[in-house]
C-alpha cells in the first residue's frame, strides 16, 4: 500500500475537483437543480399533507437526480476523456500510478457530488425556512444517504467507463441506477408469477446487483419515522464494501488496459 501515496491522490483529486466544479455542465446542472427546488413552491399549493411536503419531496428527488448526473456526465467524461484525448500520457509521465489516478478520479467526482449535494441541501433548508419550518436532521440524513448512493453509482460509472465507450457507459450507469431502485419492486411483481425463468432471473439479479432501495429512506425521513443508528451503519458498510469491490475490478481492468 506504500505505493498508493495518499498525498499524491489528494493533490490529484483536488486538481480534478477544481476542474469539475468549474465545468459549465456542473454549473448549469446546479442552476437547474436549484430552480427545480424553487418550483416546489408552486407544487406546495396543490399538495396536501405535512408542512412543506412538496418542497421536501421534490427537493430530495432533485438532490438524488442532480447528484446522479455528476458521476454520469462528469465522472465518465473525466475517465474516458483523459483516456481518449491522450492526456493520460502527460499524467503518467509524472510519478503517478494507474491506481492512484483512478483513486484521484474517484475522489474528485465524489467531492464534486458532495458539493452538489451541499448546494441542494442549502436550497431545501432555505426554502423550508422561508415557509416556516427548520428542517435539519432529516435533511442531513437524506444528504448522507444520497452521498452513499452516489458513491456506489460512481464506482459503477468508472467501471463502465473503463470497459466501454463513454455513451454506452452513461447508459449502463443510468441502467444500474434504475435497476437498483426497481429490483425490489420487480421481485414483488414476479413473486406471484408462474414464469419461473423470469422469477429466478429477477431473484439472481436482486442478489448480484446493488439494491439502491437500501439507501432510499426518503419517505421515512420526510415523515420523521425513526431510523436506527445501526441502519446507517449497515448502509455505510454495504456501500463501502460494494464500492471497494467494484473499484478493485476497475484497478484490474486499468492495469490490463493498453494505452
Amino acid at each position: 500500500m506504500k505505493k498508493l501515496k495518499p498525498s499524491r491522490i489528494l493533490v490529484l483529486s483536488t486538481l480534478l475537483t477544481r476542474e469539475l466544479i468549474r465545468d459549465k455542465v456542473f454549473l448549469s446542472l446546479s442552476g437547474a437543480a436549484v430552480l427545480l427546488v424553487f418550483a416546489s413552491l408552486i407544487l406546495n399549493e396543490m399538495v396536501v399533507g405535512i408542512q412543506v411536503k412538496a418542497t421536501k419531496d421534490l427537493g430530495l428527488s432533485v438532490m438524488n437526480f442532480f447528484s446522479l448526473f455528476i458521476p454520469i456526465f462528469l465522472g465518465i467524461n473525466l475517465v474516458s476523456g483523459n483516456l481518449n484525448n491522450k492526456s493520460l500520457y502527460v499524467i503518467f509521465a509524472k510519478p503517478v500510478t494507474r491506481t492512484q489516478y483512478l483513486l484521484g478520479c474517484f475522489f474528485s467526482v465524489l467531492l464534486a457530488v458532495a458539493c452538489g449535494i451541499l448546494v441542494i441541501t442549502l436550497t431545501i433548508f432555505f426554502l423550508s425556512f422561508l415557509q416556516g419550518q427548520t428542517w435539519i436532521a432529516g435533511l442531513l440524513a437524506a444528504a448522507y444517504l444520497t452521498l452513499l448512493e452516489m458513491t456506489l453509482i460512481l464506482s459503477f460509472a468508472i467501471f463502465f467507463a473503463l470497459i466501454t465507450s463513454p455513451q454506452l457507459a452513461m447508459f449502463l450507469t443510468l441502467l444500474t441506477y434504475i435497476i437498483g431502485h426497481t429490483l425490489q419492486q420487480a421481485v414483488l411483481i414476479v413473486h406471484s408469477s408462474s414464469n419461473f425463468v423470469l422469477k429466478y432471473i429477477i431473484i439472481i439479479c436482486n442478489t448480484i446487483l446493488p439494491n439502491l432501495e437500501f439507501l432510499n429512506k426518503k419517505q421515512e425521513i420526510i415523515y420523521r419515522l425513526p431510523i436506527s443508528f445501526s441502519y446507517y451503519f449497515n448502509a455505510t458498510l454495504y456501500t463501502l464494501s460494494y464500492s471497494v469491490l467494484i473499484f478493485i475490478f476497475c484497478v484490474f481492468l486499468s492495469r490490463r488496459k493498453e494505452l
Partner: protein
Amino acid sequence: MKKSLIPILLIAAMILCGVGVIVSRGFLSSQLKGTGEKEQDLYLPDPVYLKFIAAGHDGLVSDLVLAKAMTYYGSHYRERGKFTFKHLKKLFFTAIEMDPLNIDACLLAGNILSEIDIHGAIEILKLGMRNNPESWKFPEMIGFKYWYKLKDSKKAARYYEIASHLPGHPPYIPSISGKLYEENGRYNEAIRVLYNFYSTTQDKRLKESFKQSILELQERINHR
C-alpha cells in the same frame, strides 16, 4: 434591396409574428376550453407498476398525481352536477398507494370523493385505515360517512367504536358511538363504549358526564 429598408422590414415582420402569436394563442386556448368540458381518457398505470417506474421517488410521484387530482377536481368544480369525475377515484387511490403515510391527503380524498361517489370515498378511507392503523381519524370519518351520508347507524357505531379505542381520539367519539348504539337499541354495546372511555379518561367533568350516560342506559336496560 436598400440597406435602410431592412430594419423597417424586420420591424414589420416582428409585428406580423406578434399578431400571429396572439391570434393562434386565442384560437388554441378556445380549443383547449372546448375539450375541457368533455371527460378525456386518462392513462395512469396501476400503483404497483407506477412504484416500479417511480424508481424510488414515490413521494414525488404521489405529489404530482395528487396535484393532478386537485386540478382535475378544481377545474370542473362548477360543473359538479353534470361532470362525472370518473378519474378522480383512480387518481386519489394512486396518490395514496404511492404515499400511504400521507394521512391528510387520504382524509381530503375521502371528503372530496364522498360528494361524488360515497362508496369510493369509504373505500379510500378504509385504505387509509389499513395503512395507518393507529390513526383515529379514519374510522371516525368512515363512521361519519355511514351515519350522515348512508344513514347506516349500525356500521357507523362500529367505526366510531374502533376510533374510540385508538390513541388521541377526542372525547366526543365514544359519546357518539354510545349514542348510535343506543339508537339501535344496543344498550350493552353503548355502555361498553362509554365505560371504556370513562375508565381511561383523566378529565373529571368528562368522567361525570359519561357516568351519567352509563347510568341512564343502565336504567333503560332495567326497564326493558
